[in-house]
């Protein structure tokens, strides 16, 4: 009898274990994600009675959204073009790197991965400021281009503007690509690492050449990594304002710049909240569409 009771109790207790394990995460998310999100949603539909009022009055003010979108469509479009371009560049640069490390890395694998992560030992801000120094008018990159007499050519391509590399589209996109590249390399590396390379041997036995084996076997199997990497790159890049602030000029501002300005300079919390929500909504839809297209059934 007593033993049975104990067994029941253990079983009953067992049922609560998953909840127990989940609760720290759930409480954390509830307090620091869900609750602020609800506050933000309320703020985005509120009006401030006066400019320096701390609280906004909740009035279902949907015009916050229509105004935010119509006033800042330029920055929205620019943010998505910058983030999209940076993501594509990250794939173009990151995939070969991940491939070489995973397939040809051999005993240097860990060292190479370490090198990918090394820039992260300094802060995001410092890395961006370092880029600003490198691209500055008296910096090494422009100096080298001048010595190679390439400035004129690059100017006609729009990469150099008014004799400078900073305050251009290229500088901001370059900064985004640089800052988020490791987020692309690491997931692609993980997905490539898991592939059993004997599959490519099998493909070659079936009369595929090297390129076909890659395209038909390796590439499809690594798509989940590309998908994850794209999300990790695109989403933060679209909302970023640091790169636009330090590498761009007044014609390269992104939506993050606007949100920052609305919150901290204009004290216009409702518009800032509406902008943030619009950004989240667009990113959510884009992610869902992207997931559909790439087929994420066997995502890890």
């Amino acid at each position: 009898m007593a033993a049975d009771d104990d067994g029941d109790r253990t079983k009953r207790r067992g049922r609560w274990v998953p909840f127990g394990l989940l609760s720290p995460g759930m409480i954390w998310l509830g307090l620091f994600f869900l609750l602020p999100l609800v506050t933000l949603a309320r703020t985005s539909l509120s009006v401030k009675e006066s400019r320096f009022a701390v609280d906004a009055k909740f009035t279902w003010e949907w015009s916050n959204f229509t105004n935010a979108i119509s006033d800042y469509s330029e920055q929205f479009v620019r943010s998505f073009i910058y983030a999209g371009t940076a993501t594509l560049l990250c794939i173009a640069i990151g995939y070969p790197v991940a491939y070489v490390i995973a397939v040809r890395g051999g005993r240097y694998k860990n060292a190479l991965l370490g090198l990918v992560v090394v820039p992260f030992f300094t802060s995001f801000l410092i890395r961006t400021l370092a880029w600003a120094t490198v691209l500055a008018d008296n910096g090494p990159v422009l100096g080298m281009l001048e010595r190679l007499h390439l400035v004129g050519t690059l100017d006609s391509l729009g990469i150099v503007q008014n004799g400078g590399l900073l305050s251009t589209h290229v500088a901001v996109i370059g900064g985004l690509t640089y800052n988020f590249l490791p987020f692309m390399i690491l997931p692609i590396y993980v997905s490539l690492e898991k592939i059993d390379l004997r599959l490519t041997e099998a493909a070659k036995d079936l009369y595929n050449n090297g390129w076909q084996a890659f395209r038909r076997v390796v590439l499809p199997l690594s798509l989940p990594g590309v998908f994850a990497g794209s999300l990790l790159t695109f989403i933060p890049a679209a909302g970023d304002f640091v790169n636009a602030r330090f590498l761009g000029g007044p014609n390269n501002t992104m939506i993050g710049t606007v949100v920052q300005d609305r919150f901290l300079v204009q004290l216009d919390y409702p518009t800032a909240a509406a902008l943030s929500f619009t950004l989240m909504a667009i990113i959510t839809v884009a992610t869902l569409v992207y997931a559909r297209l790439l087929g994420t059934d066997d995502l890890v």
Partner: protein
Amino acid sequence: MGAVAGVGLVGPSLLAACGSDDKKTGGNGGAASKSLWFENWPAYIDEETVDLFKQASDLEFRYTESYNDNNEYFAKVQSDLAAGRSIGPDIIAPTYWLTARLINLGWVQEIPFDKIPNAKNLVPQLQNPGWDPDGKFSLPWQSGMTGIAYNIKTTGRELKSMADLFDPAFKGKIGMLTEMRDTVGLVMLLTGEDPATATMDTAEAAFAKIQGAKDSGQVRQFTGNDYMDDLAGGGFAACIGWSGDIGQLALDNPDLRFVIPEEGGMSWSDTMVLPNGTEHVANAAIWMNYVYDPENAARIAEYVGYNSPVAGVQEIFAAGDDFQKALAESPLLFPDAETTARLKVFASLDEDTEAAFDERFSSIVGA
């Protein structure tokens, strides 16, 4: 503006929380408390003065340099001040227009002038200024001039008018300040309007001119303090700048020049105010009295290179060593009467007008 206060997805109530983290470390008040906390702009005092004051006063003096941007600082402290809570520092250093806003909102305390005998040394032109008409709530920390800063190596010629900043020869090499009153004020003077009586109507021509320069790529960047790197590095041929900065930079780099445009320049002051909730008013008075002593004021002015609001500093420099004698002659530190007559202080804007100005300027700056 060294660092960026990046707060993306945070509600206003959470934003407020950022401002209050140091609150408990400020000491626990009381009349006998020895603590005092002054939060000032970066590089706005020599370290020696801080140390000397600690020795002379026997106070636990805490001097921080986290005041980086007027708007961001206001956003950080406004909910505490609105709720009547202490923000932590006993003295802060808002620029004159923010001082006016804080006074109008009733968020700052009267300065105990009866405990500050040296306040009599305040120069006459800063007594009862536009931002504090009764002169009860603020005491200037330093004043300065806004004009054109340029690197003669990049421009190849001396500049004298704001029109030079719109010269196509300098396309993409021009910087303007994110400080709205400085940039708009100088361009208003170019368009023949008086910034001291600015309205949205009289400022419109200036806004349109700045907008055009931004759209065409004439303006490379709108900056805060960081314009100095661009100017020294050749990224900017010319920009709108502050007198004291250029005075300091020119010591290392004689190519850097500063000029009050022939149309006129802007004058501004950063002030010391006592935010509501401050318990160490008496200690703050000891500090203010200390820095309004001409000897101490001279030491500070020698380091920061702006216009000291304390009378007698020039005489002390004139009697000092060679470096100080040169400072006494410097038009940046002690502008002559002719220059002073050409300086304007931007109009006091009421809440709605200020919002309209900020909004318009923001839309040009690109955010």
